[in-house]
């Protein structure tokens, strides 16, 4: 049985992609956030454009910050968003 992860987007990442969340099936070859990003980039021009520069993005696995090298493990949710600007 294949595992899947919910990907959620915020701020201009959400606006430019035109979706606030999507499901992603985790194949055996997917181990890290970077592996997901590589496959997500094939979903369209907006995905490829936004994901091409990870220095402008922040990532969280199950609501804890991660990096492209972070291992997905049993995480259920990946969030992709710009640097935060609250306060």
């Amino acid at each position, binding site marked *: 049985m294949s595992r899947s992860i919910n990907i959620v987007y915020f701020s201009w990442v959400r606006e430019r992609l035109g979706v606030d969340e999507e499901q992603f099936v985790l194949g055996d070859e997917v181990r890290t956030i970077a592996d997901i990003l590589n496959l997500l980039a094939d979903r369209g021009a907006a995905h490829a454009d936004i994901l091409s520069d990870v220095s402008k993005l922040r990532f969280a696995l199950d*609501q804890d910050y991660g990096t492209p090298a972070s291992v997905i493990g049993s995480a259920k949710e990946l969030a992709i968003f710009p640097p935060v600007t609250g306060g």
Partner: protein
Amino acid sequence: MIKVETGLADFDIGSETQDVARHGGGAIASFVGLVRDDGNLQSLELEHYPAMTQKALYGIAEIAKADWALHAVTIIHRVGKLAVGENIVLVVTGSDHRKAAIEACSFIMDRLKTVAPFWKKEVRLDGTDQWVEERQSDIDASKQWDE
């Protein structure tokens, strides 16, 4: 006591300060952030990641409570559409002494700005809008607490 809230509702600084005071100590510090009028701003739209916001703010409050021996911490951050002059964020810290309360309050705001998952969009009087970008001065202010 740690209290963390996010939502559209405004907060009452007086009652929040009294809540913190009830938990003891001899010093209370607070900070209120407002929507600043920079000449042509109509409003701010604040987005957040609800599942992560609570966790992130609570984590910051726990560190502050331990490091400055606080009796109570309250963090309230509003989301949604906020007009010029409206409240955005409130931090109240209660401790035995002034220095601890003030420092902890400052630490919480510096961390909140660089860690808590909120994003501001500025809506201008001419109808245009743009997402606020992170500022190096905020990153530097947050990092100073690691030294």
